[in-house]
């Protein structure tokens, strides 16, 4: 509790004791009436003052004014216990709200806490002199020392030492990452095992941790439709209830007096109108909606999913069509040797020859051959390397002429070869113009892609679509493997935009289309879709900029997790709206009929708020899958 909350807590205790004492005192009703002003003023003086200020500033319809009128009215009607009690409960409710909101604010902020407090700046390496400074003061290119258990304050490159990093604060991924010299490290990760010296490459303000924090903070400022609805509703709700209360005071007694010719029962109707005023405070509604979104965004960010605004949380929950990019999204985006066929020698031997022939090339295909070979390449065995553009390579290895390339190369060199039925890039090899077999290189589907698509289907996604620039055969194979509904292949980047537009036109109203890409050269598509989801965006500013939802690592399972969180969040938002409105209207009706009184009204008001706040916090807890 802060100072203000403590003060209010003491006021609540003091006035409760006073009320109890006065009730037990053996004095006349009249004395009690006057004595009750003491606890009333103790508990309500600030409300009365604020109400007065509201009147002076010509803004009368605020809840302070309403509480003041309701309680003063009750006291004037002789229901002084009730008047004081209503004020007391109102204050208890306010105190609870303030504590609960403060606590969840702190909890959620802690979840998102990746801000480092300090940096160990190295002043003199020889004397190992280190100074602890604020991360703001560290210049680009400085050397900082990060000890085990400390947060890496700023993005940089390791110059000395190796360690394992806990990246879970950034990615939600709990498996530690091993890093060594020359590896890039990101601010916000926790160093687990060894001491490392890091040369900073960015200023603190530009570092990943700062960027993410900025993103999350600005996220909850982008309001959703539900939030706008509630604030609009709150604006008209209070005046409308006040007018209703006034009608209740005037119409029924007048009708009774002049039409029914019976007693007007003024006191009864005034009391019922005052009950209305107690119910007219919109706080429960207004507090629970932003709190739910805030908790949702906080919970998602602790799972490595950045949702850039409450509005995107809302749209994400309505996604029915999911369009994926292939390379880097559903596949690893790195080429690997997946097969060696029709070899006239051992596979390893063929691979070795191919790797040697391609050893001077930097092409991704050559690199994957070298990776698959896995051993040190002795370049002295290779001579006369000729690159035949668009075809492949000719080289002399161990005195034999090797041709490595596509079918065109084999045809132009008049080598008979066997066609391959596999999807992917095929490298045919010929030794001294004799066919020696071929190597298949293809992009590998991520291990979780199939499960991710299945999960999405279970979440009510109507259609999954894959767009790719790759060949039809490769695309269809991948689509089949992970059970994607539709696939469009051989697309140029601008074709992807028009395909997405086509799909956008097909969907029904209230359904959203999300595009998932890795943020590399698909920024236009990301911004064209209803929701752009960038994947594996850690450290890529362009992707973070262009998308609405950022998945910090490249695990496709995060897509379904993001949608699940958004759905849960929206479910709770609607529950809270329905519950709070329902209880309020029920109380209004019961109050008008005289079934409920001021006691139930204040309990409804405070109770609804408590339950809504607790319900909102529920977003944070969920299945950890």
């Amino acid at each position, binding site marked *: 509790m802060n100072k203000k909350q403590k003060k209010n807590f003491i006021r609540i205790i003091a006035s409760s004791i006073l009320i109890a004492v006065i009730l037990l005192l053996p004095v006349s009703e009249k004395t009690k009436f006057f004595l009750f002003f003491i606890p009333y003023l103790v508990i309500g003086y600030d409300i009365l*003052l*604020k109400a007065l*200020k509201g009147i002076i*500033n010509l*803004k009368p319809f*605020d*809840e302070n004014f309403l509480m003041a009128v309701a309680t003063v009215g009750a006291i004037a009607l002789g229901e002084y216990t009730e008047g004081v009690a209503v004020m007391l409960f109102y204050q208890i409710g*306010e105190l609870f*709200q*303030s504590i609960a*909101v403060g606590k969840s*604010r702190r909890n*959620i902020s802690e979840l998102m806490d990746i801000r480092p407090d300090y940096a160990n700046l190295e002043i003199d390496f020889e004397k190992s002199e280190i100074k602890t400074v604020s991360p703001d003061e560290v210049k680009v290119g400085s050397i900082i020392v990060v000890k085990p258990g400390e947060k890496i304050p700023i993005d940089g490159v390791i110059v000395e030492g190796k360690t394992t990093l806990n990246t879970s604060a950034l990615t939600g991924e709990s498996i530690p990452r091993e890093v060594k010299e020359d590896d890039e490290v990101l601010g916000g990760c926790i160093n687990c095992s060894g001491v490392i010296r890091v040369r900073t490459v960015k200023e603190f303000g530009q570092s990943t941790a700062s960027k993410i924090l900025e993103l999350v*903070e*600005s996220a*909850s*400022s982008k*309001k959703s439709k539900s939030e706008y609805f509630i*604030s609009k509703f*709150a*604006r008209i709700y209070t005046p409308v209830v006040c007018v209703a209360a006034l009608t209740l005071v005037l119409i029924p007694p007048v009708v009774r007096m002049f039409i029914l010719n019976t007693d007007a029962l003024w006191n009864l109707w005034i009391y019922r109108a005052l009950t209305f005023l107690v119910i007219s*405070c*919109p*706080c429960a509604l*207004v*507090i629970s909606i*932003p*709190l739910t979104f*805030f908790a949702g965004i906080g919970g998602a960010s602790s799972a490595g999913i950045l949702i850039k605004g409450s509005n995107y949380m809302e749209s994400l929950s309505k996604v029915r069509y999911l369009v994926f990019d292939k390379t880097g999204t559903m596949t690893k985006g790195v080429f690997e040797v997946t097969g060696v066929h029709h070899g006239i020698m051992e596979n390893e031997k063929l691979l070795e020859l191919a790797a040697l022939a391609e050893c001077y090339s930097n092409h991704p295909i050559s690199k994957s051959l070298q990776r698959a070979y896995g051993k040190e390449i002795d370049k002295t065995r290779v001579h006369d390397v000729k690159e035949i553009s668009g075809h492949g390579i000719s080289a002399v290895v161990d005195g034999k002429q090797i041709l490595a390339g596509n079918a065109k190369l084999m045809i132009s060199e008049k080598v008979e070869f066997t066609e391959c039925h596999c999807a992917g890039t095929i490298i045919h090899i010929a030794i001294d113009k004799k066919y020696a077999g071929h190597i298949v290189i293809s992009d590998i589907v991520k291990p979780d892609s199939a499960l991710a698509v299945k999960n999405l289907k279970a979440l009510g996604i109507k259609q999954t679509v894959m767009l790719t620039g790759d060949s039809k055969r490769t695309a269809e194979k991948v689509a089949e493997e992970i059970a994607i509904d539709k696939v469009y292949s051989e697309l140029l980047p601008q074709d992807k935009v028009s395909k997405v537009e086509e799909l956008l036109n097909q969907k029904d109203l209230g359904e959203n289309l999300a595009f998932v890409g890795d943020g590399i050269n698909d920024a236009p598509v990301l911004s064209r879709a209803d929701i752009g989801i960038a994947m594996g965006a850690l450290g890529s500013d362009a992707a973070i900029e262009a998308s609405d939802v950022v998945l910090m690592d490249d695990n496709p399972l995060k897509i379904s997790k993001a949608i699940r969180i958004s759905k849960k969040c929206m479910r709770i938002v609607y529950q809270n709206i329905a519950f709070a409105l329902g209880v309020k209207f029920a109380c209004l009706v019961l109050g008008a009929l005289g079934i409920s009184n001021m006691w139930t009204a204040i309990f409804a008001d405070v109770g609804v708020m408590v339950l809504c706040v607790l319900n909102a916090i529920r977003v944070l807890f969920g299945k950890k899958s």
Partner: protein
Amino acid sequence: MKKTYNIEVDCANCANKMEDAAKKTEGVVNATVNFMLLKMTVEFADDADTKKIMKEVLKNCKKVESDCEIEIDE
């Protein structure tokens, strides 16, 4: 030009009222109050005297919610 200020306010509805009051202040292009983070983001015209406008914003906010506070840095 956008600037963000720390604010103090007790209830969510009061935060909404502050947002309205800030929006209506002269010199303010747009304003959003984030109750959860207790921050007010105000958008000014490019050459505006932000400090002067913020004093005005605070005055207007005080009218709707006398308890509120805005940290206007010097």
